[in-house]
């Protein structure tokens, strides 16, 4: 061995490919054998050690549901994520133009408060809300025959049994009558309930029925 190698491998501590040389105590050379694929070097008890990489974040598609009938309920929502993220698209209705609404836990009135902004007033406007429904349509109704609509909706802290759940959404739809026909809408607020969200009900204004539409539900870590 060369002198450089002898110095780097004092007392023959390094014996295997991937070994790491460290001090297990003051002036005490030690060997840390190589970990396994994917492990990360971390510290435990004041010395280096290999540990499993933390679980990857990101979104997991939980369900794909077609909207039909007077209402659609997503029940038994898994309680293993940090947030829920939904994409609602292609909503049309039978018989009448109406609103598209989302109701956490099919809850009673006054469980929801928020502010909605849209472009129908010609400028950003704020509408206080107080009811159990999250209206994705901020005007009297969306054009029931026009499937060119889309919303993204998110609930955070949804598993909490002690705190409210903030939410936000944004989207686009074609207005049913008058004024600006292409409506861009967004909202933020909170679901004022200390019960975990275990279900989400979608309906078409509560008085009409869906002809089409799709809801994608993702869990976010």
């Amino acid at each position, binding site marked *: 061995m060369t002198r450089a190698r002898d110095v780097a491998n004092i007392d023959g501590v390094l014996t295997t490919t991937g070994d790491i040389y460290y001090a297990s105590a003051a002036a005490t050379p030690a060997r840390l054998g190589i970990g396994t694929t994917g492990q990360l070097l971390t510290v435990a008890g004041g010395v280096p050690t290999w540990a499993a990489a933390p679980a990857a974040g990101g979104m997991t598609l939980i*369900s794909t*549901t077609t*909207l039909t009938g*007077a*209402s*659609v309920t*997503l029940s*038994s929502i*898994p309680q293993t994520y940090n947030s829920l993220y939904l994409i609602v698209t292609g909503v049309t209705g039978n018989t009448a133009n109406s609103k598209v609404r989302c109701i956490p836990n099919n809850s009673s009135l006054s469980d929801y408060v928020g502010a909605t902004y849209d472009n129908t007033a010609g400028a950003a406007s704020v509408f206080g809300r107080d009811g159990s429904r999250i209206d994705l349509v901020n005007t009297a109704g969306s054009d029931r025959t026009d499937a060119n609509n889309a919303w993204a909706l998110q609930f955070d802290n949804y598993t909490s049994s002690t705190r409210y759940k903030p939410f936000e959404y944004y989207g686009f739809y074609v207005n049913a009558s008058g004024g600006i026909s292409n409506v861009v809408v967004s909202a933020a607020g909170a679901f004022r309930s200390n019960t975990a969200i275990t279900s989400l009900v979608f309906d078409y204004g509560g008085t009409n*029925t869906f002809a089409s539409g799709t809801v994608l539900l993702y869990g976010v870590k």
Partner: protein
Amino acid sequence: MSKPTIRIHDLATNEVIDREMTDAEFAAYEAEQAAQATAQAEAEAKATAKAALLTKLGITAEEAKLLLS
């Protein structure tokens, strides 16, 4: 008359059930229809009264807004 159907998607089992509303669900559905019809009629009556008043005053809605600003 048949009642409207509703869909329940159980995410624990991925089972999708389509069924008619129960009597209680249908009663709530009809109550909401009645409430919305009342609210719409009130809104339309208010709009009609507003238009009639503007006509009586001989001003436009924009001019009325200007007066109140």
